[in-house]
């Protein structure tokens, strides 16, 4: 008889490049990937076991040890902490009788931490067996553990009604809410699905490119590369086959707008991918979604199926001879760095999500070595509206350098966290007014941890490529927040753990900087330590990808904009302090030998 692993491997035709899917299937089926599974996969795929394991051990949601019949992954992002995560976490631990990182002896419950899961507007939140639980409290934690012990199914454990919009869809049934608070041209649901495809198939691909170029649309994933130009590069690249990737990895802490698009406007996204495919002559699309959004899988598969029925996907799309394009969904398995386009491709090829050395760029040599376009969810959606209404229309929004609109994911200390679509050129000030804040705002983290922490003297700055470029994550910190201890340290931990580990600089330096920061926070720092951080932080610029290059930003931008916080903590009477503490250093030995520290 064939076991599950065998069947899964056969389902993916013994194809090594589908290793991610195989592992995801096994992990979901049995809560872990056992050494026997590894041996079997290695044999069947003609790989070595260590090779299989190097992929498994890269991803947060893969485990070689059982993770419990119910595995609870509680988010540990800054905003989760601000919204009272500590109480919820304590309640989970108390009720389950284990601490984070453990599984109950009966194998029923596993408790784990996880980085931002894209629910910053409804924290504290957790993922339990691929379903999302939001706005948790210690009371809810107790209820959840009780339900688990009562043997309830996950679906029976929701106490609140389901969220808004498509979150209520029968295939989603999630308590997640969209919190769309401001609609603009991209989020506007009032458009005709399929119209953009109908329009472009009557145009030459070059004309589409020139329209997109004319709109001046730039990538919304953070890097801001001109979309038309990217498509042109890919179109001109030589390759037997071409691919369109939609980057729905949305890993930057504080962003959740792509989740909202996937939930409310998946048809718009599919259409955007089809437009891109037509333009660069790609025949296959891959929608790479972070594992945290797995609860949307069935729903999205259904929408894809529907698009195939309507011939928005498939063969000779909308009657255009030779325009063949289909999309498959690729899930990640928990790794922020996979949002980097070349890491995304590596991951989709079944490997560790390690960014590639560039050049060559994905447009020349991407997925399976073929020319590949990687675009953000929002970019692809914007393209549809550009093609429907024209580049001129699009340029009427925003500023001359930053045309169009941007979806902002706003969270933290504000009255109405959620997704807002605003025209570029919007000031931080206006943003704060728009979301409603109480009390003084101390700081705003613009662009997530890899962006910058700015103070009130910079709130007149505007969002846009010419000033504050951002992928859209905005986190607001009220005056009571401890920026260094609660924000900067958390962000540094995030980068330290999310590094793929292949560049020496990114693997080692952020931790060195964090230790310096801790020394300062413990009151052992001197002015020189601040200067050291600034000088050493620069070495990270030699890292391969954006993660390493920006990994010191939480510290560097807070030193730049909140230097007084650091200076108030360093010793002014001393020029030099190694940080050595003899009391501390002898503590363990005294305990072990049972003597007084008579030093």
């Amino acid at each position, binding site marked *: 008889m064939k076991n599950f692993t065998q069947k899964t491997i056969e389902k993916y035709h013994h194809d090594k490049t589908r290793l991610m899917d195989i592992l995801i299937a096994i992990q979901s089926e049995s809560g872990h990937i056992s050494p026997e599974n590894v041996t079997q996969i290695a044999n069947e795929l003609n790989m070595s076991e260590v090779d299989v394991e190097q992929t498994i051990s890269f991803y947060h949601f893969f485990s070689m040890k059982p993770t419990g019949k119910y595995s609870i992954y509680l988010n540990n992002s800054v905003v989760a902490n601000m919204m009272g995560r500590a109480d919820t976490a304590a309640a989970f631990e108390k009720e389950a009788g284990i601490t984070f990182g453990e599984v109950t002896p009966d194998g029923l419950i596993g408790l784990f931490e996880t980085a931002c899961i894209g629910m910053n507007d409804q924290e504290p939140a957790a993922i339990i067996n691929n379903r999302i639980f939001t706005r948790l409290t210690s009371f809810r934690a107790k209820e959840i553990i009780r339900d688990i012990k009562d043997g309830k199914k996950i679906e029976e454990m929701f106490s609140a009604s389901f969220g808004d919009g498509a979150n209520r869809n029968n295939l989603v049934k999630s308590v997640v809410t969209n919190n769309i608070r401001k609609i603009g041209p991209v989020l506007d649901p009032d458009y005709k699905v399929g119209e953009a495809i109908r329009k472009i198939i009557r145009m030459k691909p070059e004309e589409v490119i020139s329209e997109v170029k004319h709109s001046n649309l730039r990538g919304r994933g953070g890097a801001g590369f001109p979309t038309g130009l990217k498509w042109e590069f890919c179109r001109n690249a030589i390759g037997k086959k071409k691919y369109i990737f939609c980057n729905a990895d949305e890993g930057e802490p504080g962003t959740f707008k792509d989740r909202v698009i996937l939930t409310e406007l998946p048809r718009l996204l599919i259409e955007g991918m089809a437009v891109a495919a037509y333009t660069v002559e790609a025949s296959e699309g891959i929608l790479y979604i972070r594992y945290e959004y797995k609860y949307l899988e069935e729903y999205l598969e259904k929408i894809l199926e529907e698009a195939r029925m309507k011939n928005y996907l498939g063969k000779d799309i909308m009657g255009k001879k030779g325009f063949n394009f289909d999309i498959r969904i690729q899930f990640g398995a928990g790794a922020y760095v996979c949002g980097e386009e070349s890491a995304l491709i590596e991951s989709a090829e079944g490997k560790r999500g390690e960014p590639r050395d560039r050049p060559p760029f994905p447009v020349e040599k991407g997925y399976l070595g073929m020319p590949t376009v990687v675009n953000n969810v929002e970019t692809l959606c914007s393209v549809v509206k550009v093609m429907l209404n024209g580049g001129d229309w699009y340029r009427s929004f925003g500023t001359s350098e930053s045309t169009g609109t941007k979806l902002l994911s706003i969270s933290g200390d504000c009255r109405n966290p959620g997704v807002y679509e605003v025209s570029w050129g919007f000031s931080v000030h206006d943003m704060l007014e728009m979301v409603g804040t109480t009390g003084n705002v101390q700081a705003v983290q613009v662009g997530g941890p890899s962006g910058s922490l700015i103070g009130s003297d910079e709130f007149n700055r505007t969002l846009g490529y010419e000033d504050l470029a951002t992928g859209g994550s905005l986190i607001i910190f009220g005056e009571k927040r401890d920026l260094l201890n609660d924000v900067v340290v958390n962000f540094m931990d995030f980068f330290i753990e999310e590094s793929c580990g292949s560049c020496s600089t990114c693997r080692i330096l952020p931790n060195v900087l964090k230790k310096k920061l801790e020394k300062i926070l413990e009151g052992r720092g001197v002015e020189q330590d601040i200067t050291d951080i600034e000088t050493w932080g620069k070495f990270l610029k030699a890292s391969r990808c954006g993660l390493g290059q920006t990994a010191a930003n939480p510290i560097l931008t807070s030193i730049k904009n909140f230097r007084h916080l650091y200076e108030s903590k360093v010793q002014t009477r001393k020029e030099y302090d190694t940080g*050595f503490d003899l009391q501390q250093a*002898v*503590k363990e*030995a005294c305990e072990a030998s049972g003597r007084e520290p008579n030093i």
Partner: protein
Amino acid sequence: MSKPVVATTSLAGCFGCHMSLLDIDERILDLIELVEFNKSPINDIKKFTKKCDIGLIEGGCCNSENVHVLQDFREHCQILISVGECAIMGGLPAMRNGIPIKECLEEAYINGPTVKNNTEKIIPNDPEIPIMLDKVYPCHEVVKMDYHLPGCPPRADLIWEALVALITGNEMKLPYHVVKFD
């Protein structure tokens, strides 16, 4: 002008660095001409009798006494030099770093294959003996060190060149083969 005063000590080291210092052959006679030694195992002066110009430190800090001696050197010496790998990075004694000190002590005094007759399973705890640190610390992670001379031991020529350069104020000339980590 009075001669520069030099002090030396061996913390968690093996005296190899001191041997290397003595290994400068006949230049030792020049050295005696050039400097005056204060606290040092070479002349067996146990306590500082005055402020010194240069302190040479062999070995890292593995216990509380090492720390006190090193701090004493810092107080009495204008310039402190880490001499050898142990002073610079803990050296071989630091191979225990990363293993919890409790485990190290238990292995040494209770569980180790050479332990006999410790039926009461005592880890020595007389108040007179120095207390082990949680790890072996490089000197510059305890106090400020001004220079570092690597090697295990540092080549005699390196020590010599460094001392002469410091005393005369001239630039150090270090041929490739004198700076080695082994």
